[in-house]
């Protein structure tokens, strides 16, 4: 089976060994459609073949976990009959090819992962990383991605309530676009991605199938970029938020009326995945008739239909007697629906096209028998050199340093991005973008759900284990300062080429660090995503895991702490351990040059104590703000800017002001309060300037630097 000398399996990105494994499973040479299905399902993106063995390390259990990793989204019990569903996903490679559509379809995909579970999606977050904005190409990518997220999220009608924006050289040829979605549902509405029982009918709902992304997301995200990437582009997927909105409402009605046994979204690997996975999970098979799939283009071949990554499609599994009701719901919401198959009692997935069998394979083998690699792992030798040579800033000019930090697009306000996102829809965003964690109220209850996501490629480059652990602690504290107790984590592991032993080492270390922190916090990992091959011209990105922590506030503090609630006369307190003079991976170090040194490790005992204190103070203090990027000076400046009030800080020294050691937060309180054991008073609010270390700067100057950081950089 060769065309231009290269065997077809190789053109589809398969190795010879993998091909031989298919032959072994089938006991014969695969038909073209079968080969297509195995190739997409066994791609890195869909099969996690390099990472799967290591992901088992994550703690995934807790009494409140309803659905852990393995389904479309993780689901946790938040009490009184309510569940929360959460998932994070990357769209890095598609966003590089076409930033608007890449980001837009990323949003569409993560929404489907959540409403597949029976949940109404209530909020989105985006974590996006680009090369420096002094390069026009990076401005184009950043602008395109933000409009793509806005264009899709706003129109589909789910608020985008937070996220992260970061800039670093290592993302210039490979931006990172991660998106996360939270959904809420009643217990009895939970639906799983299962085919249910033999005789069930498979109904394909939503957009027509075209040649979008053939060999797209899955193959694209499983190979590196090089010069030829621009010429070998698959046909780009185009998102249609209007179709998705109708699909959400139609599916929620199907669940409410109990019309489906199971449902699966069509994402990467399209129909191949949506038919085989639910059948495999149920231990069953399926007959699929491709002639009944509603198509957008003529002349599509069976492999094309099976691999198509057309957006806004769902496959519902329905008892025969309920099919008419399902079609009626679809008709009312003005979406297309086709009956395309029937669940079989045996384990075969049998696909026909033009009356001919084009595939006849064990359904479970597409995911169950996927290759599992134990790739070589090696600690990079350059890391000791970095550790040996830490950055030592000595004394710095406080105001000048503070302004330079605030002007950095990675530290300055992200309002340029989030003011393009509708973050207020649904009237539940109690603490929105621009604060630490996002806090959403759960309508009809006294509960609040808080979410924070954190990533930091510099920390994780220097020490992937310590770095990843600190991300979990930081996200957990961000959630706690809104008054919510951390209950679960999701993660998106963005790394380089796993065929390099150093990258595999980073992967394993990151997983270890995250696992340690989650165990210390007692929170399970309920889902995630792995994005490998983030490299350009052989240069890997910094290992950039992104951690999302979900917290539950019950009851929610009303009003909760917010950055804009500080008033003149209030006292400023700092809670948490004294900082060391370690600047490895910090923003101050970034002003000076590349990362070096070894970051401070998290301290689980201190971390837990500080989180408990935050949970208590959230019901008392008008402002709680965690100390992270840029250290204490930036944290206090952000409070001054948001509240429009000056402050006097009785703190001196570079480490105390700009150090980023973990487990610290600022509380702004009325004088005469009941002081916490872990805290000390460091100043007071008042006036219209920030006074610190014998220097003074107007709040308006701080605000200017902070608010103009990104707009200025975008003007080029």
């Amino acid at each position, binding site marked *: 089976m060769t065309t231009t000398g290269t065997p077809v399996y190789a053109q589809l990105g398969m190795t010879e060994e993998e091909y031989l494994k298919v032959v072994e499973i089938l006991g014969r040479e695969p038909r073209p459609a079968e080969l297509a299905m195995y190739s997409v399902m066994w791609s890195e993106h869909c099969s996690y073949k390099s990472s799967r063995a290591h992901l088992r390390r994550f703690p995934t259990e807790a009494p409140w976990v309803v659905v852990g990793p393995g389904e479309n989204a993780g689901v946790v019990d938040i009490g009184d009959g309510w569940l929360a569903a959460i998932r994070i996903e990357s769209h890095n490679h598609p966003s590089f090819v076409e930033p608007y559509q890449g980001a837009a379809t990323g949003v569409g995909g993560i929404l489907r992962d959540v409403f597949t579970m029976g949940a109404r999606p209530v909020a989105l977050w985006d974590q996006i990383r680009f090369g420096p904005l002094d390069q026009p190409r990076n401005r184009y990518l950043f602008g395109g991605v933000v*409009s793509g997220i*806005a*264009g899709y999220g*706003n*129109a*589909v*009608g789910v608020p985008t309530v937070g996220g992260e924006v970061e800039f670093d050289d290592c993302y210039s040829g490979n931006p990172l676009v991660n998106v996360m979605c939270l959904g809420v549902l009643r217990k009895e509405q939970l639906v799983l991605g299962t085919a249910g029982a033999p005789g069930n009918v498979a109904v394909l709902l939503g957009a027509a199938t075209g040649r979008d992304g053939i060999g797209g997301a899955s193959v694209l995200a499983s190979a590196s970029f090089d010069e030829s990437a621009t010429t070998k582009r698959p046909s780009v997927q185009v998102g*249609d*938020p*209007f*179709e998705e*909105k*109708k699909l959400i409402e139609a599916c929620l009605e199907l669940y409410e009326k109990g019309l489906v046994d199971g449902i699966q979204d069509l994402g990467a690997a399209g129909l191949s995945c949506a038919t085989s996975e639910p059948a495999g999970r149920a231990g069953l098979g399926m007959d699929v008739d491709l002639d009944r799939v509603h198509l957008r283009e003529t002349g599509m071949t069976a492999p094309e239909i099976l691999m198509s990554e057309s957006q806004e499609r769902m496959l519902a599994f329905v008892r025969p007697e309920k099919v008419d009701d399902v079609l009626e719901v679809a008709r009312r*919401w*003005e979406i297309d629906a086709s009956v395309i198959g029937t669940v079989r009692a045996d384990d075969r997935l049998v696909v026909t096209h033009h009356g001919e069998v084009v595939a006849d394979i064990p359904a479970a083998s597409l995911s169950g028998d996927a290759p599992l690699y134990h790739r070589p792992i090696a600690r990079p030798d350059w890391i000791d050199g970095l550790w040996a040579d830490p950055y030592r800033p000595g004394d710095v000019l406080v105001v000048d340093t503070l302004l330079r930090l605030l002007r950095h697009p990675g530290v300055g306000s992200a*309002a340029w991005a*989030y*003011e*393009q*996102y*509708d*973050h*207020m*829809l*649904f*009237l539940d*965003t*109690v603490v929105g973008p621009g604060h630490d964690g996002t806090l959403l*109220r759960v309508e009809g209850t006294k509960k609040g759900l808080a979410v924070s996501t954190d990533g930091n490629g510099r920390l994780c480059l220097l020490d992937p284990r310590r770095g990843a652990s600190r991300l979990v602690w930081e996200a957990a504290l961000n959630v706690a300062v809104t008054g919510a107790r951390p209950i679960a984590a999701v993660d998106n592991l963005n790394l380089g080429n796993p065929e390099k032993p150093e990258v595999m080492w980073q992967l394993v270390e990151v997983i270890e660090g995250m696992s340690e922190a989650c165990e210390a916090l007692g929170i399970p990992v309920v889902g995630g995503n792995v994005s490998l091959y983030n490299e350009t011209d052989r240069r890997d990105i910094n290992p950039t895991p992104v951690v999302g922590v979900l917290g539950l506030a019950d009851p929610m503090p*009303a*009003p909760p702490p917010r950055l804009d609630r500080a008033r003149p006369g209030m006292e400023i307190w700092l809670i948490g351990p004294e900082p060391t003079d370690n600047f490895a991976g910090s923003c101050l170090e970034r002003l000076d040059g590349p990362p070096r040194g070894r970051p401070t490790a998290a301290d689980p005992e201190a971390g837990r104590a500080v989180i408990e204190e935050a949970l208590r103070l959230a019901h008392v203090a008008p402002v709680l703000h965690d100390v992270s990027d840029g250290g204490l000076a930036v944290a206090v400046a952000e409070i001054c800017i948001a509240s429009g009030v000056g402050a006097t800080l009785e703190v001196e020294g570079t480490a105390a002001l700009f150090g980023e050691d973990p487990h610290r937060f600022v509380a702004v309180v009325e004088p005469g309060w009941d002081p916490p054991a872990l805290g000390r008073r460091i100043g007071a609010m008042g006036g219209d300037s920030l006074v610190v270390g014998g220097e003074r700067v107007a709040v308006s100057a701080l605000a200017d630097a902070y608010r103009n950081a990104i707009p200025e950089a975008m003007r080029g």
Partner: protein
Amino acid sequence: MRVAVVVFPGTNCERDVVRALRLLGADPELVWHRETDLSGFDGVVLPGGFAHGDALRTGAIAALSPIMEPVRKMAEAGRPVLGICNGFQILCESGLLPGALIPNRDLAFICRYVEVEVVDDTTVLTAAAEPGQVLRIPLNSYEGNWVDPSRTGRVVVRYRDDPNGSQDRAAAVANAAGNVVGIMPHPERATDSLLGSEDGLVLLEGFVCSLQPVRA
């Protein structure tokens, strides 16, 4: 007081509007855009969102929906008709309000609080407000830039600064009779101090008060 809250495919603020109207004691009900009858309703709201995905022009396809016939009849009968954001766009496209809405001057979606000033209190939306009253309300739109070559629109609420290039800084526009009003910022999003502002209440109150049956 029964209020029809119309849902087009792609509408997304309908539940928020229902929540806010309930807060004020009205009795809102979701009505699908294919309905052809609104008898029994005292007023109608076209909520925000992206009806028909904003295909072609924002509001263009929705303006031809079956529901717009009874909406037109209500408007002609002097009943309160309110369009918020996308609803404003639909009212313009259907000719119930003059002008049209085009993309924001800076070509970016805007989601933030803006300050607006009530300049005319003789409409169903502004009946409970004072002229000169300043309100802080979220703006949330891409096509919020109102143009009216005919210059027949009555501007009833004005932006204090100029966020999007709208003609006469118009944030809300009424027909001559004052019973049909379109507003670009979202009063229903400013109905709870926990979320940042209650300034939208005075507008929705005016609307709810105007629902009283007209004397024959």
